[in-house]
């Protein structure tokens, strides 16, 4: 169904790979936007976690990427696309505890192997596609009216 473009907010944010000093700033901005619009705080929390995990995946593994946020009166949607190594075995990556993080990343508290499953857990709809050697694309949706969930 086509939405009235007036009440659809679209904003995209650039994420730079390996830039750990600014890691998390995109998800913070996303959270602030959701708060200003007046989204329910439990939805905001889930959205913030999903956005953060997606952002961190780009920071940790890719060269660069982009998080595109779309908000309509019905849902929040993140499209996260990166240029990076991609994921060889998505099924494996979706298992809790599976991680390809390096020793350094783990020491910084990242790469507990919860990223993708955690996004899935916090989203109402989650799709992932990846081309090894090229990049990964995530589609994350959260419904605003919880009655419409699933």
């Amino acid at each position, binding site marked *: 169904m086509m939405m009235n473009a*007036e*009440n*659809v*907010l679209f*904003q995209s944010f650039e994420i730079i790979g390996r830039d750990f000093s600014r890691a998390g700033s995109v998800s*913070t901005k996303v959270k602030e936007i959701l708060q200003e*619009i007046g989204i329910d*705080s439990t939805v905001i*929390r889930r959205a913030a976690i999903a956005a953060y995990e997606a952002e961190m995946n780009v920071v940790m593994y890719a060269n660069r990427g982009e998080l595109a946020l779309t908000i309509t009166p019905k849902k929040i949607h993140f499209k996260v696309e990166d240029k990076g190594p991609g994921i060889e075995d998505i099924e494996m990556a979706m298992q809790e505890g599976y991680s390809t993080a390096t020793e350094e990343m783990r020491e910084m508290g990242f790469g507990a192997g919860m990223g993708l499953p955690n996004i899935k857990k916090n989203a109402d709809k989650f799709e992932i596609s990846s081309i090894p050697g090229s990049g990964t694309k995530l589609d994350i949706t959260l419904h*605003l009216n919880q009655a419409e969930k699933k």
Partner: protein
Amino acid sequence: MNHYFHSIRVDSDKCSGRMRCMRVCPTQALRARGGKAKIIEERCIDCGECITACPNGAIIPLTDPFGELSKFRHTIAIPSPALYAQFGREILPDKILAGLKKLGFDDAVDLAQTCGEVSFAIQEYLREYKGPKPLISNACPTVVRLIQVKYPGLIDQIIPINTPREIAAREIKKKKSKQYDLKEKEVGAFYLTPCPVKMISIRQPAEKGKSNLDGAISISDIYGPLLSAMEGMEKGSYRKALESICILGIGWAMAGGMSRTLRLKNSLTVSGLSEILKVFDDIERGKLRNIDFIEAYSCHQGCVGGSLTIENLYISYNKILKLIETLEFEKIKACPDIREVRRLYQQKYSFLEGKIEPRPLKPLDEDLNKAIMKRKEKEIIYEKLPKIDCGACGSPTCLTFAEDVVRGEAELADCIFNFPRPLRKFRHEISELLDKSFPLNPTLSESEEKKKEGRKKNETKRNYRKAKA
């Protein structure tokens, strides 16, 4: 719209419109309106940063005057353990409590003992708790308000155990009213506070209950009189004075003091609002799930750093630390009976009486469609602004200005960079006027004139930069 009571008030006569307060406010609750500071009530979390920042003393913390005592038939002082840290090492809590009685209170209660009890109760709660972690201490009312306003998603992680000051006031009022055959309302319990926000937690508790305390008196107000009252008081036994100090509770005056009593593997202590914001952001992202407990204070180093204290906060922090070390060295372990605390805990004795509800900021619009549109408009306006956060419009940053415009609380014309269009056609006249505004000395040769003009221009630029800084 709810009306929020605040511990902070602007004295317009004293306010010179410098707006330092506006720049330090962590929740963007201050604006310049008509050249004076104005507080936006729903945004304010009573942290007191503005009180410290104002060079004119125009932001006034609202505490109770000493005269309030005369309203009650029996008065009790309940000093924050931070009071114990205000005096030299020789002056121990027993003397301070005696000094308070000499000052005119009928009773003075040692809060450290109750702090110790609450530490045990928190231990019980942590042991039984199964929800998302970390749990967050509610000792600092500013932190509780910050969560209500900015991190409503973390509300359920605030520990629902009542604060020592409230429990102490409740119990002592019960006891004293019985002892002297008075009505409970005839007994007045006054908290001696290191910060203005405790005043609010008394008048308007975060959990929407009613406070057991009747008022708060600033430590800075009572310091002088108390010091005189203690002069010439008989020196008791040092050992005996030490033995009356609860080793678990005394540490509540400083950041980290609570955590050391809880014996947790994973706890964090944070102090200072800007640091708290970073840590809370991390909690929201789910990064600190392996931490059990967070002790957070809006003032640096904890309550000893409150804006209504006298002693340098590092000195007072150190005094508490040394006191704990002395108690440990002397093997003095006065503390409450843990079995008694557990028994009372089971009877819900230690829990908050109400529930802490979120207090999220008003969205841009109640209607979701309109809110989304306004958010887009805000972004468009922001893109046009100079993004230098000069504050001349009366909003702390260009981004908040854009929001104020969308909310209808400011006008685009308030931005000095938004030069009114109709004036643009006079640009030549204006430029001529500007040239005339620096009369040159006619006796100087032309080349020197030019040099001087250059210098003057630089100076004006410098002054402008200075003024901006």
